[in-house]
């Protein structure tokens, strides 16, 4: 079977190589037949990759330990679900997943945009094939998932920390995001190579960018939740390089999603947009490189391997190639219009872009700082949390404010009087909220008050937008409030989907602020019967409970929680001691308060032989809004992504006209 897998990968590699060489030649010489055969080769490579995937999944399911990969990452007693998810538990398998997702995206993108400009598509195919060739090259020659050995009796098993339901969903989501950014990149390069620098490539890839960006966002939130409930230090994001690796391309893609609107509406920022798409794709490659090369110290454990230099070389090739291409096409990328005023919708988009890119680049600086300092001074140094937090505040808080301002400012030029009228209500809401917060004692954290005041401002301006739109729709007659509201969204999915996503970002900001700026932490050593208080809740330690399970001993500290005289329940933070792995795992206990959105987070930090416990208790107000934000985010992204026949027709007419004029 391993031979079949190897053969499938070689086939995929050869087809992709053909699509790259033949496709480039066909596009360059304008040979239609050749370009079409390259397209077919790209489709064929997907089929071959599916076969390779099936072989590996089959080997995992059969526990075929003659496959090195299967023997290294699974064992007989591992449940079937985790056995299959071990597909992306190791390096070779995750590279195969990259290739599978990439060729799947390629097929979908080519098939759905066959009616888009033929000349652009002719160049898109070899660009996609270039990226695919790189990954299949690695899989065939450097890191084959089909290496075989004399079959061993049992495999080595999966890292216990990966035996978690999130393992089934978190990595694939991130991959769908990372890899998805290849599609807009390929179309941007295709448009440049074909000298079609109008905004058609943007329209053709808008959904792909949006989908990739949404997957990346969801993937990160899932990872954050995984860390929160499982790792047990009470946080959800630690500015770890691997976490940053996913955040950076997401920020770049967010900037891109906004700035393309200016190009569509006003024909501006063409160079900026192609640069952004290169940045987003480059950062997604860099993210894969970071997680796979082990070059930077991270809490995530990954195989250190030989593929690092390959990746670095490919990233350099992509960056240099695309920058050269952009430079060569600069004369074609001149803007049709100029920025008319610094107070206009386009200007706020511009500020938002600068802030997002600045945030992404400062994070990048922090991530590569150890390497750079090692290279320059010979002494590696790291930047830590304060560095990242400083820039998150400096760039993130203005970004939050812009989310409230941007949608209300007119295109081209906004008058001061119009601004005053528009912002009256949101401003009033923000001022009242700020005063209320100060009165309630939230002034303990200045950054917290600022973040919450801005959040109220943004939510008010979003609500105002929805209310105004609905009222205008209702004034057209024939519809009730509910009908007007749903018709408003249905007719402007992009815009209102975007507002819903904005609302989710506000929820996210509120959750993060609550969990960080307003968190209360108490630690205490308690003997049975002793108690401690944390932000109004009284915790009484009742003693330990110990239970033997099949592969571990579970020790739990029994903690009764009281608020005032009211008994809120018994909670059981503790530790599991795994025998075979000789490893301890912290099992936290979390009390969710659905009414206030806060969590009481309990950690049994240390179990002492004299029967006492070192209990750590964290009150995290409003933290659940963070997870709620995830659902709102998915909703907003779905609204914006949903196919819209009316919009398609409008665009088709617009470009049919453009083609005739050209």
């Amino acid at each position, binding site marked *: 079977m391993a031979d079949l897998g190897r053969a499938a990968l070689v086939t995929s590699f050869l087809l992709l190589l053909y699509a790259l060489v033949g496709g480039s030649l066909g596009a360059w010489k304008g040979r239609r037949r050749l370009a079409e055969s390259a397209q077919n080769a790209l489709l064929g490579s997907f089929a071959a990759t599916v076969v390779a995937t099936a072989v590996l999944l089959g080997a995992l399911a059969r526990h075929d330990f003659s496959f090195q990969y299967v023997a290294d990452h699974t064992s007989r007693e591992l449940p079937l679900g985790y056995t299959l998810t071990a597909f992306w538990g190791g390096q070779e398998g995750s590279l195969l997943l990259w290739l599978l997702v990439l060729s799947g995206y390629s097929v979908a993108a080519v098939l759905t945009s066959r009616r888009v400009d033929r000349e652009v598509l002719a160049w898109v195919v070899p660009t996609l094939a270039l990226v695919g060739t790189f990954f299949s090259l690695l899989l065939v020659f450097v890191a084959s998932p089909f290496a075989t050995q004399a079959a061993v009796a049992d495999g080595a098993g999966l890292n216990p920390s990966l035996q978690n339901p999130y393992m089934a969903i978190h990595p694939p989501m991130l991959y769908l995001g990372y890899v998805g950014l290849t599609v807009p990149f390929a179309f941007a390069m295709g448009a440049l190579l074909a000298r079609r620098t109008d905004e058609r490539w943007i329209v053709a890839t808008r959904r792909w960018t949006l989908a990739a960006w949404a997957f990346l966002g969801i993937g990160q939130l899932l990872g954050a939740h995984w860390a929160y409930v499982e790792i047990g230090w009470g946080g959800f994001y630690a500015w770890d390089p691997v976490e940053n690796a996913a955040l950076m391309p997401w920020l770049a893609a967010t900037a891109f999603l906004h700035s393309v609107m200016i190009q569509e509406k006003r024909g501006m920022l063409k160079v900026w947009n192609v640069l952004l798409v290169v940045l987003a794709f480059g950062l997604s490659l860099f993210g894969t490189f970071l997680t796979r090369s082990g070059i930077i110290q991270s809490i995530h454990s990954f195989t250190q391997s030989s593929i690092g230099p390959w990746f670095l070389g490919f990233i350099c090739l992509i960056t240099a190639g695309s920058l050269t291409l952009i430079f060569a096409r600069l004369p074609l990328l001149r803007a049709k219009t100029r920025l008319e005023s610094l107070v206009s919708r386009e200007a706020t988009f511009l500020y938002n872009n600068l802030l997002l890119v600045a945030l992404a680049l400062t994070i990048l600086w922090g991530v590569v700082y150890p390497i750079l300092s090692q290279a320059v001074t010979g002494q590696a140094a790291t930047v830590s949390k304060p560095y990242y937090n400083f820039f998150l505040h400096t760039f993130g808080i203005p970004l939050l404010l812009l989310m409230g301002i941007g949608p209300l400012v007119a295109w081209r030029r906004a008058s001061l009087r119009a601004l005053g009228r528009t912002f009256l209500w949101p401003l009033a809401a923000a001022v009242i909220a700020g005063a209320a917060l100060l009165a309630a004692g939230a002034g303990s954290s200045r950054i917290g008050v600022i973040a919450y005041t801005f959040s109220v401002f943004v939510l008010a301006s979003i609500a105002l937008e929805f209310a105004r739109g609905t009222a205008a729709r209702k004034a057209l007659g024939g519809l009730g409030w509910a009908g007007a509201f749903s018709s408003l969204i249905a007719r402007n999915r992009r815009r209102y989907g975007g507002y819903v996503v904005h609302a989710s970002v506000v929820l996210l900001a509120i959750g993060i602020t609550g969990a960080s700026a307003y968190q209360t932490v108490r630690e205490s050593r308690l003997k049975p019967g002793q108690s401690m208080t944390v932000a109004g809740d009284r915790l009484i330690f009742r003693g330990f409970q110990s239970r033997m399970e099949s592969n571990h001993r579970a020790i739990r500290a029994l903690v009764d929680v009281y608020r005032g005289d009211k008994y809120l329940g018994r909670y059981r933070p503790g530790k599991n001691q795994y025998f075979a792995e000789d490893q301890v*795992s912290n099992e936290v206990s979390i009390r969710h308060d659905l009414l206030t959105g806060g969590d009481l987070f309990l950690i049994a930090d240390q179990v002492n032989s004299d029967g006492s416990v070192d209990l750590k208790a964290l009150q995290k107000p409003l933290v659940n809004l963070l997870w709620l934000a995830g659902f709102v985010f998915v909703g907003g992204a779905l609204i914006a992504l949903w196919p819209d026949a009316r919009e398609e027709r409008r665009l088709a007419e617009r470009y049919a006209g453009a083609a005739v004029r050209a």
Partner: protein
Amino acid sequence: MLAVFLLYTSIAGGGTPVVRPSQLANHHGRVSLMGQVVGTPSGDAHAGGKRFRLRDVKGAGTVTVVYKGSVPDLFKTGNDVVVDGRLRNGVFVAVPNTLVTKCPSKYAPKR
């Protein structure tokens, strides 16, 4: 944007150096110490402090570390850890709650 960035980095300096136990003698400020836990840790991280020895991951230099605060699950003899602090009178005094375990480069299963 650039101005903000330069201003910050010039004030806050260039990050924390990452050093091995054998390099400690040359550093007097706060550093991130990376090494492998050797010997048997003693003491109480939530009372007087946990004491353990760190050795260069590839090398021979060792130093005694005194640490207070949360101890990660993967902390045990033979694993690599990173901890912030500074050398005082030959003992590395750690900043509370900065101990992180670095997963073994490969989750090395028993073969």
